[in-house]
């Protein structure tokens, strides 16, 4: 009888890990950006973006290495890191914010607004992003997209290349969170 109870207890703990943990982590979040002009389309993705959510308070933090974006061409990566983002001086982009009205108990999909501050290239800007949060057996999947202006982050594009880079960049993200004990 005790053995059966133990099996049930282990099964319950393993299926409801996100009910008992306070934080979830995504170590391999994906952030992609797109720049499309009549001259050139540029796409890059970073697949090792870190994010942590405090499930009780709805706080969310995201951090990414700017030199870990993968481009189709090495020359694009070089321009991005050395001329635009200056990743040796500003190696990380970070976001800290709050998921408004986040309900950790909701088993269905929930669409929520995330408000916070995004810092990139040494410039911090308040942003609001709509996200879709899907609860899964072992965590959450958070997806969304937003647009941002290059000029908002003091990124200087040389006049000669101005036609190659869009003024507004589209950003997509996807994070798979798992329980985390820190």
């Amino acid at each position, binding site marked *: 009888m005790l053995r059966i109870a133990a099996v049930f207890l282990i099964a319950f703990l393993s299926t409801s890990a996100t009910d008992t943990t306070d934080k979830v982590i995504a170590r*391999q979040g994906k952030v992609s950006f797109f720049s499309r002009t009549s001259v050139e389309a540029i796409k890059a993705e970073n*697949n090792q973006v870190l994010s942590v959510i405090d499930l009780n308070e709805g706080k969310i933090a995201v951090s990414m*290495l700017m*030199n870990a974006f993968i481009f189709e061409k*090495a020359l694009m990566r070089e321009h991005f890191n050395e001329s635009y983002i200056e990743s040796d001086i500003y190696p990380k982009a970070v976001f800290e914010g709050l998921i408004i009205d986040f309900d950790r108990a909701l088993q269905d999909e929930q669409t929520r607004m995330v408000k916070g501050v995004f810092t990139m290239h040494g410039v911090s800007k308040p942003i609001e992003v709509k996200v879709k949060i899907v609860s899964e057996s072992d965590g959450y999947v958070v997806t969304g997209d937003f647009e941002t202006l290059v000029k908002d982050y003091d990124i200087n594009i040389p006049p000669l290349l101005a036609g190659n880079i869009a003024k507004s960049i589209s950003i997509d993200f996807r994070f798979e969170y798992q329980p985390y004990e820190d």
Partner: protein
Amino acid sequence: MKRSARFSYIVLCILLILCFLGCNDPLNGDLTAVQPRKTYSVAQLISEFKSSKQTENDLVIAVTGVVHEINHVNERHTILLKGNTEDETYVICDMNTNHRSTTKAIKSGDSIIVKGLLKGILKDVIMLNCVVIKTN
């Protein structure tokens, strides 16, 4: 006329050279033939980052460690190496797609040596374009 034709020819040559360099940067592709600058154990590498001894990134290095997890998150082939530290800090190796057959044979618990382009640390150390150079 002759001068403008020569100028156009020079510009075309420069563009072709730039395109060739842009598309064939060895650090953007397969690192099989690139000699690693240094070999670390997972614990050594993490310790060097945490004590701020390791500040140089975009270096090709080799890391010896035990496979903690193999996953395909974001449709990427990724190997997480673990050290002997108590905290959950790993080395995340984003594997080069040309070496799928080699990496398919690897499983959790295997001791391996991975070569890759060191990008830096967040919670975990991040390496891109990784290739497995030895399995035990």
